[in-house]
């Protein structure tokens, strides 16, 4: 009987996923604003003119500005990691609103890389490095944090506080070489943390600074961090990810035999799915 239920559930889930994808596609079917262009010299200028559903497409280059995202706007680098947002060593480089998406940027040199608290935000395929404190500060609504490289930040890769799991997850990220924890869960955080590589962070891989939350931590490779007194949650593993050239060219692709496909929940490459 349970087999029948499982099959039914799988079909229902696929149908639901299709509906969600359709809704997202429709929601983002707005204008495309290109930066830089004659009309928009900076991301901030484009953001000021963007309406809900618009996409700001950013050409390669270094943009020394701190961006405050408007609701339901997609901010996308045309080429992955080639548009660089530089925070000038102070402040938060990107502050997200609600239902906004940040895709493909390198975000560096701020006090914080990204701050997100609103519902339905997504941070996808970004490289968040060399921020003086934290890569991503996430409070209240857990964002969808997926396929990012979060490394060499002065404090934690991701710091959460009182996040509730709604639609977001921390999924398929590479979180390495950060100066504090890989992921620091603060307050009553309830996070879903799956399929990540969390390696070589100075303190704990996942630092539960407060044991009050409910977490779903599974299928992560937690390796080379400070060994805590708590055992790794069941369902996670630890093996050397053999990053190709993390210090030189920030190349966090996994070495031979370390793709972890056998341990991830979706049988895809563990950590950020970097294709080039």
């Amino acid at each position, binding site marked *: 009987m349970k087999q029948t*239920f499982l099959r039914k*559930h799988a079909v229902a889930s696929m149908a639901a996923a299709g509906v969600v994808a359709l809704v997202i596609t429709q929601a983002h079917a707005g204008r495309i604003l290109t930066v830089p262009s004659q009309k928009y010299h900076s991301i901030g200028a484009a953001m000021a003119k963007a309406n809900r559903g618009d996409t700001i497409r950013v050409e390669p280059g270094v943009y020394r500005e701190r961006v405050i995202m408007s609701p339901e706007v997609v901010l996308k680098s045309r080429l992955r990691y080639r548009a660089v947002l530089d925070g000038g060593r102070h402040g938060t480089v990107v502050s997200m609103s609600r239902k906004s998406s940040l895709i493909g940027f390198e975000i560096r040199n701020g006090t914080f890389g990204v701050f997100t608290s609103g519902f339905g935000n997504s941070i996808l395929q970004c490289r968040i490095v060399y921020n003086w404190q934290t890569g991503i500060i996430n409070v209240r609504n857990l964002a969808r944090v997926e396929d990012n490289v979060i490394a060499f930040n002065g404090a934690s890769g991701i710091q959460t506080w009182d996040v509730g799991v709604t639609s977001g997850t921390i999924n398929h990220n590479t979180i390495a070489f950060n100066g504090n924890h890989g992921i620091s869960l603060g307050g009553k955080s309830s996070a879903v943390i799956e399929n990540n590589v969390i390696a070589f962070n100075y303190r704990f891989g996942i630092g539960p600074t407060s044991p009050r939350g409910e977490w779903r931590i599974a299928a992560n490779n937690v390796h080379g961090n400070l060994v805590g007194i708590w055992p790794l949650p069941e369902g996670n593993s630890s093996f050397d990810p053999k990053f190709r050239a993390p*210090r030189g060219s920030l190349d966090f692709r996994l070495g031979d035999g370390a793709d972890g496909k056998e341990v991830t929940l979706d049988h895809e490459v563990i950590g950020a799915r970097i294709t080039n």
Partner: protein
Amino acid sequence: MKTTNLRIIRQAVLTAVAATFMLMPARATADGLPGEYLLTQRWRDAIVPYSPLANPAFLVRENYSALRGAFATTFGATFRLWEVGATQPIGMYQSVGLSWVGQQTVLFDETVAGAATGNKTGDMHNFFMGTYAVNPWNSLTLGVNLNVLYQDAFGDSRAGFGADLGLAYEIIRNARFGNHAAGLMLQNAVAPATGDEALSRDVRIALLSDYWEKSITSRFAFDVKDILADAAEFQKFDTLASRLVNAPTAFEWAFSGAVGYTLARMFSLRVFFGLNQSGFDYWGVGVQANLPQLNLGRDLAAGFQYNGVQEDQISMQTSSLRAELDGHREANYARRMAGKLDVAPSNLYQKAMTLHSQGKYWEAHLILHQILNNYPDFFKNDWVSYYAGNCQEMMDMRESARKTYSAVVADYPRSPSAMHANLGAMRVNYREGNLDQAEQLFGELTQPEVTDSLKKHACYLMGQIFIARKDYENAVYVLQEVSVGHPMFLFAMHSSGVAMMLMDKPETAADMFEACITGEPKTAAERAIVERSLLFVGYMLYEGLIKTEHSFSKSVAVLRKIPASSTYYEEAQQCLGWAAIKARRYNDCGATSAVLLKSNNPVLRADGMLMEGHCRTMQEDYEGARAVLQRGVEFVAAQQPPSEDSLMTEKQRYAGVRASYDLLARNVVEKAQSIGIAMAPAELDRMHEEQRTMKQRLDSYIEGFDAFARGAYFGRTLPEIKQDLEYSLASVTWRLNAKSKGVRKMEQEQQKIEQEIDKLKQELNGDEKGQ
């Protein structure tokens, strides 16, 4: 070099033996400059990166509240030096600190003119620092120490005030080439002066570096000492001339360095050294153990260092401790931001939860929608939505509840609230008779990520669905999944018992009911289900369905456990009444029938009349029995007995009310979504009144259906009772008639006897007259 204070020399001469010890350590620790123990890094090398004494601007690098301490002794503990301090980060870009640095000799016996006074004396320096550091722009940090010097040199106490200035710049952060910060400090920029002597000024340039996740650390500093000094102060005592003469001045500098290696982020080894204008000055080696595992990932370090001074061939040992406390800057920032965002909705949420727990679902529902409208980013909106659905469910607004639950699953698919919403939707679907949809949701609720508790809730509902489909075996199978201690356990056991009864397995059913009865009910619903199980077991024992000794008396004992406050009290009394008749306990029977005669249930009321009639008949009160039974027959004749047809009619009426109620529910949700509570209180009050009225009607329908179902299961129908009443009435009437015939015959006999007696009397009287 500056001349030594004459007062010190005088007192040192007085303590000639002690002076021998004193002068050597003084060189070892202070090189003779006033306040040299503050300038040199060597004796507190382990805590230099965290000390405002090295540069107040570096305090911004501290991310935690921290305590530090270093304690050094030299030369058989003749001299003691210490630094203790606390640092407190403020926000992201500021720090403050308090420090106490001290130098103290051992205490000596005070002597005056070679004679001991009996007092103790010594040389003690206390240096207190208040530090403020700020990172105002880019990677530039500024810092200042405000200092108080208090010294007690062999009984002569003096105090002075001063300040240090520092700045720092984070040069580079690079994964390959390391992280580097440079610092510039003017120590004693305002030099504390005690009497005619001020502490010497020092300019220090430093470079702090770490490489590869701090596995290697280094620190280099170059000091130019005693700047801005007055040349006149550079004098020496010419013993031949017996006077002070000018001494040649010199550029005095020091270069210090330390390089450390940390193994496994816990154990570190450090070597350090110092050079000055005279050449090699000192060397040292230090070890440190840091166990952040024991301190939630914060430093908890203890160290020891040994250093030797080249010129004096002496050594010094320093112990150091450092502990970080409280939260990291980033965590404090995140907490502050989280707090700022949600004060208002958090308060509303708490209010709504309180109302929900008090059963005030209408009020809670409106507040929950207010949160959803006004605070769309509130981090608990997944639960807000769920509880809005739950309020609708509790108010029996089934269609709205189902929609709200679906929205929770769609909007917050990864939230635990989605699972609860699925369960709520399953409940609603089951109540509505949408068994297939309910079963589909059961499939969702058996996924691995669903908590066991929710799974068991779902199993209970699935058991009910199987019972509704008359698939009793599967019903019992899933109901057994609900384990002891689960909130649904008693309900699952009761339902299992019912399923077993329906499979005609009374013995097993009795075991299930027994499991329910022996549970510990905590809520009103649990108490009700236990009482329902008691009723079932009581009936089964009364009817002899359970093979056991003394089943009749056990039945009475079980039924008497159902309290007068119970919904099932009257039905229990009905059974007890008939049991009393069987046992010829007519007083008990009278008491129970009196209860039934007050019942609103026409079947029970009619049965009460029948029972009383029986009771009176057995007590030969035929007239009374006939009166009661006559009333019973008339009462039953006036009733419309519930039939399948009438039930269908009632169901149609119920469906009509249900449709109106759903419409009202939609209006309520729309109102709640579009306006605030305070905007239209009158309209909301009117809707609330309407909601209450309709809910009462729905509840009465549902109670009626339940009573019908129970009556069909155990009880008798009104026509059956009517038959019994009529039979009993006829029987009593016959008895009464039979009694009347006997009396008339006796009266006739009596009359006949009396007539004969009269006749005899008359005959006797006639005989007397004839004589």
